[in-house]
């Protein structure tokens, strides 16, 4: 019983992290049709910010966390301004190639100007301690992660439902030109989308760093891959889909870890993607395809 509860919490924590990552991709995709593969490098920017603070002997956890998040948000907005704005209305392939290019350039910048090797960041280890939750051993980090994701989802929902800019972002997902035609500045909508996306990357960065305790130029690859898969499963462009996809991915991963016999452990990812493929045969557009969600356009 305890074992089951523990694995459920594991699945939730993984799912929460993937949901956070996937939301960051989905919010940008929903309004500009761009799969921002540089999202992973935004996370890395947060990581390298922690390295820089470490070098400056700044260890105050509040400062470390806030700086990493702010740096990620700033980096995200800068990418929009200088890399993606020129291709804003270009076709999706151009956007995709730009995102790949930006991702590679950033990785190489980290490589050249910092170090090709991993650098340890220990300032966030303190977030992780064993917790006894009603007789079940879990890690505090898992609880933080799940809680933070829940909070983010609620905050994002309030923002998208209650504020004019949030409502405009939902409208922009459907008909961007019409949003401009009511006088809402396109630049503002894009900037806010990237700002929110950067915030989500920054938060994910905190948890990723607290767990792995090091940065390297390619640390963004795995998170962005997970985010991408979660978005595909949930239905690309749908925010609830991104969350759902993230939790499904987390659950499938943990299920494979638990169910696969030891000797197949190395093939976990193959099984995970196999199951995802089956899901996509059942629902080729993802579970919550935005097309279904939005209803037919007149």
């Amino acid at each position, binding site marked *: 019983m305890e074992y089951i509860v523990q694995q459920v919490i594991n699945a939730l924590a993984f799912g929460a992290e993937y949901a956070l990552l996937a939301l960051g991709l989905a919010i940008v995709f929903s309004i500009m049709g761009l799969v921002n593969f540089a999202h992973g490098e935004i996370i890395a920017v947060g990581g390298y910010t922690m390295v820089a603070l470490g070098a400056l002997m700044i260890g105050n956890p509040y400062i470390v966390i806030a700086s990493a998040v702010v740096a990620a948000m700033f980096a995200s907005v800068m990418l929009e301004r200088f890399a993606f704005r020129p291709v804003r209305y270009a076709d999706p392939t151009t956007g995709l190639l730009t995102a790949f290019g930006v991702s590679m350039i950033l990785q190489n910048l980290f490589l050249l100007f910092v170090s090709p090797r991993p650098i340890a960041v220990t300032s966030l280890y303190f977030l992780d301690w064993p917790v006894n939750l009603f007789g079940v051993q879990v890690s505090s980090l898992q609880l933080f992660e799940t809680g933070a994701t829940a909070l983010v989802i609620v905050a994002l929902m309030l923002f998208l439902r209650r504020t004019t800019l949030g*409502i*405009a972002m939902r409208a922009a997902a*459907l008909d961007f*030109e019409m949003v401009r035609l*009511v006088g809402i500045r396109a630049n503002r909508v894009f900037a806010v989308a990237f700002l929110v996306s950067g915030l989500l990357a920054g938060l994910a960065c905190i948890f990723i760093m607290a767990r792995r305790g090091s940065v390297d130029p390619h640390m963004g690859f795995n998170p962005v891959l997970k985010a991408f898969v979660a978005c595909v499963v949930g239905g690309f462009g749908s925010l609830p889909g991104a969350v759902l996809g993230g939790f499904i991915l987390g659950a499938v991963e943990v299920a494979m870890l638990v169910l696969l016999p030891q000797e197949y452990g190395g093939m976990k990812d193959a099984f995970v993607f196999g199951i995802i493929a089956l899901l996509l045969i059942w629902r080729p557009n993802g579970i919550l395809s935005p097309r279904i969600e939005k209803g*037919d356009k007149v």
Partner: protein
Amino acid sequence: MLAVDQLSVFHGPIEAVHGISFNVAAGQCVSLLGPNGAGKTSTISAITGVVRATGRIEVDGEIMSDQPVESRILKGVSVAPEGRRVFANLSVEDNLKLGGAIVQNKANIRSDIAHWLQTFPVLGERRAQLAGTLSGGEQQMLAIARALMSRPKILLLDEPSLGLAPKIVAQIFDIIRHLKNEGMTILLVEQNATQALKLSDYSYLLNNGKIVAEGSAEKLGQSNELMAELTGIA
């Protein structure tokens, strides 16, 4: 109010409208009539700034042609576009809220929403409903109300009667007449020439991207073959 001079409109390499000029005086309803593909929507799109165009567009003495879409809306242009384009995934009320997004005073937005929901009772009854679930006629009313939320100087209506049943068409034209009587300046694009002529102060007839005739309802109705065809007299 609106002065268009030597306007040419381009879709990629294709020139859809060839140097047309026309005017809409303050408080007037002027219609732009013509068959499919005449260039009516292209002209409207050029006024709002969403397509590439050359020539001069002035609203209330201010040159619009070199400004981005958003500034034009801010300076008093508003459109209920072809195909209505309501935000299907938002409630009726949120559609109106976005329509008023450029209005600074929050109290004005609230009172305007209340006003339009009262003016269009069908919308009032459906204020929390998703706009995508409205009927065609209701969506058209919403598109018009949304356009009015920005308190425009000039309202552009692109085929508001398109695809609607005769009874609903009559309702829509009643609404336009009502707006005109309240003093709104309107540029009305229509294929339904008979109805449009009736409430317009002046009309232009567009064909193949050129203005081929203009004048009052009586003059146009009789003098032009194409117009006769459009109004179904021929």
